[in-house]
């Protein structure tokens, strides 16, 4: 979380890491892939997922939402799991159906009796 406050500082922070990033060739010298084509009109306009009363937003944890859907609690409908920059995983239980999910307020996913967490910094 350190120094992730302003754009230039983020760039500096990330850049400090980049010279340290090594493959057997310099990955930063490897050109990004060129896009062959851009799909048009593939999706409906995107919408933000919500719980009962609010838009799901990992902003307070510095964002970086990482979503996944699985039937975590074994009730037959897929729940939503969202990782974020805190390293925690928010579990949104699906109280609706697979076709029309309705998500409960988030709880931290538990593992080994504590909050499941991965290192971020």
């Amino acid at each position, binding site marked *: 979380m350190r120094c992730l*406050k*302003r*754009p*230039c500082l983020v*760039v500096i922070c*990330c*850049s400090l890491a980049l*010279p*340290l990033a*090594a*493959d057997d*060739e*310099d*990955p930063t*010298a*490897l050109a*990004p*892939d060129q*896009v*062959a084509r*851009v*799909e048009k009109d593939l*999706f*409906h306009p*995107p*919408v*933000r*997922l919500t719980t009962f009363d609010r*838009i799901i*937003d*990992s*902003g307070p*944890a510095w*964002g*970086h*939402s*990482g*979503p*996944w859907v699985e039937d*975590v609690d*074994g009730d037959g409908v897929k729940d*939503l799991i*969202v*990782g974020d920059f805190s390293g925690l*995983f928010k*579990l949104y239980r699906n109280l609706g159906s*697979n*076709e*029309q999910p309705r998500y409960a307020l988030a709880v931290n*996913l*538990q*593992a*080994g*009796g504590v909050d*499941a*967490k*991965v*290192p*971020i*910094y």
Partner: protein
Amino acid sequence: MDFDGDGHLDLVSGSYDPGELYLFRGEGKGKFAAREVINDKSGQPILRVPDQKHRVESFGSWMALVDWDADGDLDILVGTYVGTMFLRFNEGTRTKPAYATENVWVQVGDKRLRVPGDANDVTGGSGHANPVIADWDGDGLWDIVTGASNGGVYCYRNAGQPGKPRFESPIALVPAHSGDGYGELLEADQDPQPGIRSQIAVTDYDGDGKLDVLLGDFCSYLHIKKDLTAEQRRDLEKLRQGQDDTSKGLREAMAALRKQFAEAMKGVPQSEWHTQANMDKWQKMYQEMQSSPAYKAKREEYEQFQRALPKFVEPPDNNRGSPDTPHGYVWLFRQK
């Protein structure tokens, strides 16, 4: 994902720092065991730089499980911070995995895959490869779909055969975000757009038989005050232009420094770039850049812009000391 074929749902995850991969073994009914590191068959963590000398070398990992070679077990596919992807083949079984000690890099043709970036970004703008496996085009072969640092979503179509995947150049399913993701201006009545660093899930979300994309993002916004006069708006625009130019100058300085470091390391194997002596060299170069009058002037200019912004934007709903508010939404892209 059932990591070990025991019939229970497990949770797997990559990480930023140190980039290790983690497993939370499922115990059924939503219960998970404590975190464990996913190691290779020699007991070493699976990392982008297996013989790393410094923990930051493997910074940033995103993992997916796939039976790459169609031998009946699950191999690990890892996306990296710099946008490449590598495999660790499972040399064990579905229920007792034993992962190879060597990385095998994913290729597009004869070139190593690196997710698309922003051509205008002086840093290369490519990274945050977070692959998921899905048969996007429904041809019976799984494809790689991935998010990226630029916020886009890309499909690398598998045009190979079962057990012998071959990937075509990426198709953009979701275009890249148009801004840099930090301090973007938002009118009071304006909805945000999907941001940068897309992290995705691919699933038939609405049960209509078509695959959809869930996209997690990051973006920070400056919420413009409602009652700005026309003159204040012009001032804000001018301020932002100046800030963008200054920010670009700072990024260019960093890009130049990295290049300079790479040149200084010419002939030195990359595995030696992180010795204490070379790290000291990098630090010295970095400090020299920071203390140069030109860089300091740019920094001061940038700070001035930051200090002027609160006149034009709503106070952030946090106390980070920065005028922007970070967000991380989950966007549903429902396929038509």
